[in-house]
Every structure is written in C-alpha cells, then in structure tokens.
C-alpha cells in the first residue's frame, strides 16, 4: 500500500514537470568530453539545453543544488529483455563458454511444429518487434531506473531469429517508452536435437546462412517485380522481411572459438553484426579488432554454480575462464574494439558490483562508464540522442553521491526525458524467466539481496 502511494506521488510529480531544470554546482561526467569539476546541466523540454561551468540558470528554471553530487549520462542496457513480457514459449539457455545452446520447452507452451528444412522457417520470429511487445508493467524497469539506467535496447529473444529490438526508456510511461525501432535482430543458436530442423549447431549456422541468402534473393526478385509487373511476383516471406528490416544482427559469441566463428560468419555474409556474450573476449580481443565488429560483453560473469557438487573438479579451462572473464572489457578497450556492457539477466542492483569486477580486472573506471552509455549508443547508431551529457541530447541523466560502480555510491536522482525520478522502494518481484540467458533459479530477486547471496 505504502509502495503504491510512493508510486502515485512519483507519477504526480512526473505529470507536470517544470519547464526548465538546472542542476547546479555538480561534478559532470560528460563522457563525450572532459569531466567538468563544478558546473551546471540545464534541462529544457526534455533535452539537455546546456552543459558547462559558466552557465547561469535561466529565471524560469527550477534549481537543484548538486554540490557534492555527480551527473552522468543515464546508463543504457545494451542488450536487454526489460519490458518484454515473459510470455515466451521457451527459455534459451546459453552457457558462456560452450557455443551449444539448448532450448528448454516449458511444459505449458505448445510444441513448435516439426520443420523439415529451412523453407519452413523453423524457430523464426524475425518479424516480431520489441516495440510492439513492450509493457511498462515490468518490475525490472523500476529496478533498472533505481540503479541509474534510463534506457535499454530490448529484444524478443525466443528462437533462432528472436525478433527486432527497440530502444526504450525506463520512464514507466507506456506511451513514451519506445524511443527507436527497429535497432537490430536478435539471433540465438537454439537447437532442438533430432526432432526438428535445425537440430545441431551447424544446422543453425546453415539455416541462418540460408535465410540471409534468401533475403538477398528476395530483394532482387522484389526489385525486378517493382520495375516490371510481368516479372515473377515474389512470395511474401515475413521471416525474410523481418531480417531485412533489421539494421544489424546480434550473434551469440561467448567463447573465443565462437567469437571467431561468428566474426568469420558475419564477414562471409557481409552482415552488419554485433557479437554478444563475449566472456572469453580476453583471449581474442586482438583478433576481433581485425574483424571490426562491435562486441557486447555480458555482466553475468561465469561463476561456479552454488549447488555444484563440491567433489567436482573444474577443468583448468573453466577456472581460467572464471578468473579472466571480467578482464574482457579491459582487453577489448586495449585492443581498440568497440564494446558495451549489458546486464544479461542479472538484476540492476547487481550491476555495480559486476562492473567493479571488470574495473578490478584492469578496465579504467571512465571506460566502464562509457561502456554503459556512449559506447552502447554508438553501437546502435543512437549517439545523436543518447549516451553523453551534451547539449541537444535527450535529458537522460543519473545523479549520484559519488563515483558510479563504487559500493558506497548511491543514486540520488534519475532524469528521463528531463523528468526527475528518485529511487523508490521496489515492489516484490515474482520469479520470472527474463534475461537473455537467465537460467532457472538464477533469476534476480530483490528479496534476496546480493550482499547476502553472493553473485549466484
């Protein structure tokens, strides 16, 4: 009840925002430029109207005295399922090192029809748009915002072609949340063994290849038909339409082997690809630079399962992976590979500690901020709107008590479209199967604070 009241109060405040807000005397981490030790961020009509150390707040501006506080661009979850309802028929389980993914079908969902070849477009949802699916009624939106996230690139993730991602903000306002669509196509390597095509990793690879070849052919045939109505009329193919609509494709690449495999695959098909997962990128960063594809690194660092048999000996490779995975962002930064970090199903409140592990493994703190802001925006081509504290960009900001990702730092305010939010208590969350790789039992839950639970 109390929580509802807080919600209500927050909504009231959001309903009539001041025309201008000045955050004064703050330390400003612009990300795009140097840090301003003491300056003002001026917000007007939902946009950043000015940033600098000598900006006087206009007379109509509401002023926030931010002495001792730091302003950052709002964080962006670069590969998310926030806002996507959990009605998905299957949970995709990715193991971070092996390339093999299995699909676990929930007993209640109807089984996929058996496919006999690529023409039947098995396990394909490429035409589904996150923009059409998203709901504000997802507790992870509030959790994300509380932790300093203001936007997410969120994807439907069911199937080999999961669907088209959208940029959403975390205002919680259903009508305002979709900011851009489509931003990309989510691919997984889900297989179903012998029961239906494709039933193997190489089958999935071959299937994706065939779909892209079909897409190329579809374009040729469609163009020919548009020029000459007596030419053969191509059959409408929603699977191919969905692929063609997507400006880029996200390919799963956890291990060094899979990173190289997917990079070569993307180069072969001349895809505008983004590689995600990337826990073993520390081992292939230099090679990835040669390919030029951006990389999204999962913040769900590999850990020994809490219920693992204590007698079980991990291989040296597994141990090295667990030890080195958090050094992947630093390795990518050093190699000059464009990369961003994403939550991969961990709860937003776990993010600071996960990021800190990357920082402890050599990632400069400023790069860590960039990896969750401007880098993500650049990878998706939305840096003209988001990712830094710059005049003209959308006023998505997070104001903190200190350095982001430090344990003692608190989020004070969040601005989305220039509207001020404060962290609010989160309603209890029921277990859900969200996350791009959330395994059962690993779902984040605020009832189980990480400082007691450890990182899974």
């Amino acid at each position, binding site marked *: 009840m109390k929580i509802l009241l807080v919600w209500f109060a927050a909504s009231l405040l959001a309903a009539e925002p001041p025309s201008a807000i000045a955050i004064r005397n703050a330390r400003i981490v612009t990300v795009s430029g140097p840090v301003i030790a003491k300056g003002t961020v001026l917000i007007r009509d939902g946009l950043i109207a000015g940033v600098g150390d000598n900006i006087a707040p206009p007379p109509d501006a509401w002023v926030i005295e931010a002495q001792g506080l730091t302003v950052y661009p709002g964080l962006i979850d670069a590969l998310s399922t926030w806002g996507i309802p959990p009605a998905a028929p299957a949970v995709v389980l990715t193991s971070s090192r092996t390339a*093999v993914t299995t699909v676990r079908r929930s007993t209640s969902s109807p089984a996929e029809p058996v496919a006999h070849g690529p023409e039947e477009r098995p396990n394909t949802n490429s035409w589904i748009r996150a923009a059409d699916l998203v709901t504000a009624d997802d507790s992870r939106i509030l959790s994300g915002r509380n932790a300093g996230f203001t936007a997410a690139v969120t994807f439907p993730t069911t199937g080999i072609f999961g669907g088209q991602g959208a940029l959403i903000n975390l205002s919680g306002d259903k009508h305002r949340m979709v900011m851009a669509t489509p931003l990309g196509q989510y691919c997984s390597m889900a297989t179903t063994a*012998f029961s239906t095509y494709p039933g193997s990793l*190489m089958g999935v690879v071959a299937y994706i290849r065939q779909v892209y070849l079909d897409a190329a052919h579809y374009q040729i045939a469609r163009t020919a038909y548009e020029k000459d109505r007596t030419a053969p009329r191509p059959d409408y193919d929603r699977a191919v339409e969905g692929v063609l609509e997507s400006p880029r494709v996200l390919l799963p690449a956890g291990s060094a082997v899979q990173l190289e495999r997917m990079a070569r695959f993307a180069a072969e098909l001349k895809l505008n690809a983004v590689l995600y997962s990337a826990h073993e990128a520390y081992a292939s960063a230099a090679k990835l630079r040669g390919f030029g594809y951006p990389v999204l690194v999962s913040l769900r660092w590999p850990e020994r399962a809490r219920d693992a048999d204590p007698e079980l000996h991990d291989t040296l490779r597994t141990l090295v992976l667990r030890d080195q995975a958090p050094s992947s962002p630093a390795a990518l930064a050093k190699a000059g590979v464009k990369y961003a970090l994403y939550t991969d199903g961990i709860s937003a409140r776990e993010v600071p500690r996960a990021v800190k592990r990357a920082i402890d493994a050599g990632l400069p703190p400023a790069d860590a901020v960039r990896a969750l802001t401007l880098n993500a925006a650049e990878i998706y081509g939305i840096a003209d709107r988001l990712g830094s504290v710059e005049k003209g960009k959308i006023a998505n900001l997070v104001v903190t008590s200190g350095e982001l990702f430090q344990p003692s730092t608190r989020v004070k305010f969040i601005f989305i479209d220039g509207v001020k939010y404060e962290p609010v208590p989160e309603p209890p969350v029921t277990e859900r199967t969200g996350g791009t790789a959330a395994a059962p039992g690993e779902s984040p839950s605020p009832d189980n604070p990480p*400082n007691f639970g450890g990182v899974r």
Partner: protein
Amino acid sequence: MKAGLALVSVMAVALPAAAADTVIQNATVLTVTKGMFLGSIVIRDGKIVDAGEKVMTPPGAKIVDASSHYVMPGIIDCHSHIAADSINEGSVAVSSMVGIEDVLNPESISIYRALAGGVTTANILHGSANPIGGKCVVIKTRWGKDAKGLQFEGAMPGIKFALGENPKRPGNPTPIVGVIAPAAPRYPATRMGTEDVIREAFTEARAYQKEWRIYNAKVERHEQAIPPRRDLKLEPLIEVLEGRRYVHAHCYRADEILMLLRVADEFGIKIRTLQHVLEGYKVAKEIAAHGAGASTFSDWWAYKVEAYDAIPYNAAIMMKKGVLVSLNSDDAELMRRLNTEAAKTMKYGGLTETEALSLVTINPAKQLGIEKRVGSIEVGKDADLVIYDKHPLSNYAKVQKVFIDGELYFDRDRDMSERQAREAKRKMLVERQAEQKKSGAGRQGR
C-alpha cells in the same frame, strides 16, 4: 567491404613466422613410398627439402637427435569426428546444407590426443544419421591454431553419405528418458528408402543445376534474368555431380555397397571412399572397378547386426583385389593408436610392413586427394613427421615428437614437464576463486 579488408589483415597476422631450419638426425626413416634408411631429414619452410643417409645440414639449423628412434610420415585418419561442436544434423534425410567447417572447435582436447598418437591429418566427417549428410572438412592437428588454422588448405571438400541402419528413422520404439529421445519417424525407414532419397536428391540437384545453366546462358546473351534462389542443400550436390566434392559413404553390407555404386554410375558420379565397408571383401572387384577407395576398421565388428559379417582380413583382401584401402578410427580413442591398427594387417592378411604403414599414411592421403602434400617422407612434401621410440608397428612404440609443417606440435618431454605447472595453476585458481567467494559475500551489493 570494410569487414572484408579487415579479414585480410587478420589472416596476415595469423601467418606463422618463418621457423628455423630443422634437421632430424640419425633416425630410422620409414618413408613408406621410398623404402627405409638410417639417416636424416632436412626441414625448411615447413617442407622436407632433403632426406637420406647423408644430407647437408644448413647453418643454424635446429638439430633433433633421433638416434635409435624411428621417423614415419604423420598418420592420416580418413574418418574422424573429433574437433567439432556438432556432428549430426539428424532432423532431415538430406542435410547437405550443413558443414563441419562451420563448427570446428580447435580447443577440443581430442586434437591434442590424436596428435600425441601421431595423427597429423584427419578427415572430419558429418555423422551417419542421413542418407546424404553434411559437408566434411580435412584438418591438420595443429593444436593451438584457430579453426581456420586447423584446415588443410587446398584439400578437396567432401560430403558424407550413409547407408544401412543409421540413416533409417523408423522411430525409436523404446525411448529412454534423458538418453534416447522418441525419434519422430522420418523417411527413410528402410534401405530401399535410402536409395530413393539419394536418387531423388540428385534428380533435384540436376534440375537445380539446369536452372543455373539457363540463367547463366541468359546472362551471357545479356538478357534480363533473375538468378535462381541459392539452395545450400543442393549446391554441394552439384559439386558432387561436377566432380568438385568427394563422397565419403558410410556402409557395411555388400548389397548396399552395390546399390550405391549403381546409383552413382547412373548419375555419373564417383564415390571417392566407402567408409567402414565391413563387407567390402565380398565385392572388392566391383569396388575396384568403380574406382572407389575403401576406409575400414582393422578388427572391429559385431557391434550391431549389419556388422556381423566382417573379417579382419577385409583390408588385405580388398587391397589385393586392387582397391585403395586405408584404416580409420571413427573414434577419438582409437585414433591415438592407428599405428597398431595398421600392424594388425600383418597378422591378418600377411601385409608387409610398408603395406601396413601405407594404410594409415599414403593411402588415406590418396583417398583424400592430398598425396602430393602428405602421406610419405619425400622431398617437397609437407614436413608432417612422427618420431617414435620404437618401430611404429610395435605396440610398445610411443610417440616422442610430432612435427606438422616443420613445426614441433607435440613433444612428450615438454608435455610431461608442463603437467606440474598446470596443476599448480589449477590449484592457485581454485584457491583464489574460493577466496573471492568468501570476501564477495560480505561486500555491499549496491
């Protein structure tokens, strides 16, 4: 385009630096094709540049003393399933759209173990779940290289066919939870059906080939034309029809072997190798007449009904009837001792030492069309060499060193000395991670 250019630079980086010349001295050299001698082998730029009783040693060459040791060409396994993240695309009767090349895993420990067993080249095949299976790839066991680096550059691509019981899919009558899934019935359910699937696939491929010919002719005449849709299933079959892809066909029984040879003749295609071919001795003349090679087991049979009629003389009989024969492993473990497999043909079939060795060296090289590069110790060939402490046909022989392209990829002493360091590293990481877990539990989460 940008990615394409970048790719070139990646490959340039991946090229190995010019290694120093190497001379293997004082060895008993089993060349397989040029007899045996006590002498030396000179390696430069990954190739054998001299081999004989007396050779000239280049200045600065690395000397490997192989006194009392034996050197033979690297073993070639014509049938293996190691080093891949998937083997069977079992959902369809014709899975020629898939390829092992897409899923090579250079980190598979089986590569290192095969290497330690003297194997330097292997044909990595798709499984036998379909009458027409996926594309195969020939690799060298270059442990430590990436997937691209494993591939035997320039080797003819292959494709797997399978006859007999494995490609049949009448449905498993008794599914075992977690072990055997209740396979959906899938055509074919009989050997007749398998024949039909192959014939139909090639009929389809011919029609597709014709579509492209018509299109290409139109393009040549500068007519407007829309290219046919690229069909990844049929493209490899056209390559088979045009002799640009080898067929490696899994088979057991004489009747199914003859069936395949007849269907192949009907479509004017060549079966490059019959794999397993346990009843090959019954139809050796017909196999020789078709020109197919045979890659079989030494003495492994009766593991299922269709493998009951095998005999250990199979390899020798086929060889004497003019079939090009090799011995393969089909198994990561057996792969480590193919030299012993070869030796068995001396007991069963009375082959000479050289003939026995040829079954795992030059013969599989010929079957894979790579005999100009590997398979024997000859000047000009790749320096893929194995040093044994005893005669490799002895079951007491242990591999000491393995060279591929003149590079030392396996060294028994090095392996032994590294074990301790690896164990120490493992222990350190276990302790560190346990420590992290403890301290992590007390840390603030937000």
